[in-house]
């Protein structure tokens, strides 16, 4: 079909074509552009409605709450303006919790990306039972966090956990893994345990790397490491950037410490070891243990803004090192 033919389909004949008496003269026929618009809105409207109802509306509500002393139930709450924001700015617990969340992100995100990438490289090789290995390595990622939390809690319990069972069988004294200072290492282990998530995305990226580039490098005498560093990593860089951004967002929002808490339940939030008392745990504690919906909402809004800033900074600092096959800014 030629361009001319396409145009003739897109632009139906005007009213004059049949003497001004046709149906389209009385009621203009829907153009292709209008149909496209309608289709666009029909396809996107469920998402937009869902986004408005389940994201925009709760966020707006939380923003309003952040200016109040509301606790969900008491009759005499009142507006405090920026009072909650002023309080959090001067609350050392908030900044310490934020610092721990940042440290957790700085440690866990690179580790999980490196572990996931290493696993992806391994299971991308033509080895026997490759499918089985891929499945086994990915399995932990599909375990619900609550199940994983219970499993880790039981494994690392000081008195009855399997880890200390093995440890003491070598003649060592048992370790309180879920208490300071070891709790932070267990938390990082939970992230590495679920590195299958990162692996599966990296694996998809690896399979998109053109084979002929590797063959050309091999013909030129490049070593496996040189090929990986010079070809694989640059071509994977958009995937790695994606994993960095989503990893940072997920790590500062992690609730895994809550699932590893020594004392179960809402009031047990504050028994979480200091090294695991991250920002989201502070938020949960203020919301559900202390019933301070207003203050906790302010904490969440600050976190939201900080995540936006962190994401912007990551994009800015990686703009020169991420390799795109197509210009990401170009219109298709």
């Amino acid at each position, binding site marked *: 079909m030629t361009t001319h033919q396409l145009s003739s389909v897109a632009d139906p004949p005007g009213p004059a074509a049949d003497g001004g008496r046709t149906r389209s003269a009385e009621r*203009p026929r*829907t153009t292709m*552009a*209008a149909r496209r*618009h*309608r289709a666009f*809105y029909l396809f996107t*409207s469920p998402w*937009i*409605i869902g986004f*408005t*109802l389940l994201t*925009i*509306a709760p966020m707006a509500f939380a923003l309003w709450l952040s200016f109040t*002393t509301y*606790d*969900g*139930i*008491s*009759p*005499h*709450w009142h507006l405090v303006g920026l009072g909650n924001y002023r309080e959090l700015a001067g609350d050392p617990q908030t900044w310490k919790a934020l610092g721990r969340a940042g440290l957790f992100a700085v440690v866990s995100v690179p580790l999980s990306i490196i572990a996931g990438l290493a696993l992806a490289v391994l299971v991308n090789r033509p080895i026997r039972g490759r499918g089985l290995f891929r499945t086994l390595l990915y399995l932990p990622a599909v375990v619900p966090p609550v199940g994983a939390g219970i499993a880790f*809690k*039981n494994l690392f*319990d*000081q*008195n*009855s*956990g399997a880890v*200390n069972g093995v440890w*003491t069988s070598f003649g*060592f*004294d*048992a*370790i309180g893994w*879920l*208490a300071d200072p070891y709790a932070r290492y267990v938390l990082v282990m939970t992230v590495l345990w679920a590195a299958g998530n990162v692996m599966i995305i990296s694996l998809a990226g690896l399979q998109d790397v053109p084979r002929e580039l590797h063959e050309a490098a091999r013909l030129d005498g490049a070593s496996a490491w040189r090929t990986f560093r010079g070809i694989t990593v640059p071509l994977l860089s958009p995937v790695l950037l994606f994993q960095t951004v989503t990893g940072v967002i997920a790590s500062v929002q992690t609730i895994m410490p809550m699932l590893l808490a*020594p*004392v*179960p*339940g*809402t*009031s*047990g*939030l*504050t*028994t979480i070891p200091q090294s695991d008392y991250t920002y989201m745990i502070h938020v949960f*504690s203020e919301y*559900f*243990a*202390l*019933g*301070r919906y207003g203050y906790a909402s302010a904490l969440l809004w600050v976190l939201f803004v900080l995540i936006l800033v962190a994401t912007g900074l990551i994009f800015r600092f990686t703009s020169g090192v991420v390799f795109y096959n197509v210009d990401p800014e170009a219109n298709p």
Partner: protein
Amino acid sequence: MQTHARAPVSRRRFLALSAAGAAAGTASLGGCALQVSTGVGGSGETVTMMVKAGDLTPDLVAQAKKETGITIKQVDYDITKLIAMLTSGDPPDLVRGVGAVDAAYFAARDVMQELDTYFAGSSVLRLDDLDPVNDLWRYDGRSQGKGPRYGMAKDFSQDSMFWFDTAAFDKKGVGYPSETEPVTFDEWLDNARRLAQRSRGQTTVFGGSYNGLVKLTLMATMTASAGGSLFSDDFTQVDFTTPEARRALAWYLDYCKAEVGPSPVLPDPNGWDGPTYQAGRMAMSNNGYWMGGLIGTDAKLAQVSRLAPAPVFAGGPRVSACQGGTGLWMPRKAHHKDAAWRVFEWFFGEAPARARATSGWGIPSLKSLRPLMPAKEEYQRRTLKAQENELRHFSVIAVSPYISVDAFESLFNQVATPAMHGAMSVGTLAGQLNSAINKQLKRGKEQVG
């Protein structure tokens, strides 16, 4: 520019329409929510109960339908969900609550229905038949234990008592505590130290567990046992620096530091004492009569288990309060109050109440049901005797309506954890607890008005 009648909607206009649609959708969803528990009048009504899974079995729901003609719709208890339902004006008709800590808190916030009129007209739940434990569900606007009734306990225990395993005592050659006369807290801790078994940094058998039902009731009750009061007369402040409160606090810190039993710094992975005690890994367990329900299911365990009185401080009064009194309350905005009351009567005074009384899972909250408490076996008679003796020392310890049980627990654990590790003195801890908890009490007072 003239807009064509069939022109596609602009994106901006579409987003505006979407937002309007979303708002309308939200409104209609709210409307739907209001209709959730709408039933018809009389015996065909549906009553929504927010309870825990163990409180109401499917058999009981079927039994309720058969005996009252009322359908029970069960919603799992969740405080966040409860607050959402109360706020949206669509609360459950009956809600699970712990009388000792929930009654004053919710009543002060005016979300509970006064039940005096219902009690006055009931032939099933007669006022003269109510056990004094039900006073935990009374609140007069200032203090717990007096004023209108807002709920009722399904059963109760004196939660400062403790069970002990004679086999564990025999193994370590430790003499049994008396089943009628209380040991002192110091003697209890000394026993726990002797009974604890450790190997390579692991505690294989806990010497004893003593954590109360929650920290709020534990501290209030222990301070009363030392002869003082944790709260000020108007319940707007705590004072951990009084000699009595400090004595209670110091003992609990010693208990935590000794690592003889579960605590925030030495958690029991089972979450509560029952399974650990049953497995022979705990020599003493601070639980009242109600744990006999579990013990009675294990004949071997029942033979070696004894119930002992609540410990006392040397020279202090004998205090043995109920720290729970779990039962039900009716929200002020409940939609089916009369039907809910009928279920309330049935649950607390008819077949389910009789079944609970015979099971050993707590002391009945109606005096008339006491004769049904299990006393067929020797161990049951022994336990009942110890319990009946202890009832003479029953009291109600009022707590503040200005702080939730979770908030107190949370702040206590947060502030006290370093002291439990031995990194803070009792005096410093008392001051810090006063500061943190009084700040929350002040907020609560402002919110309640």
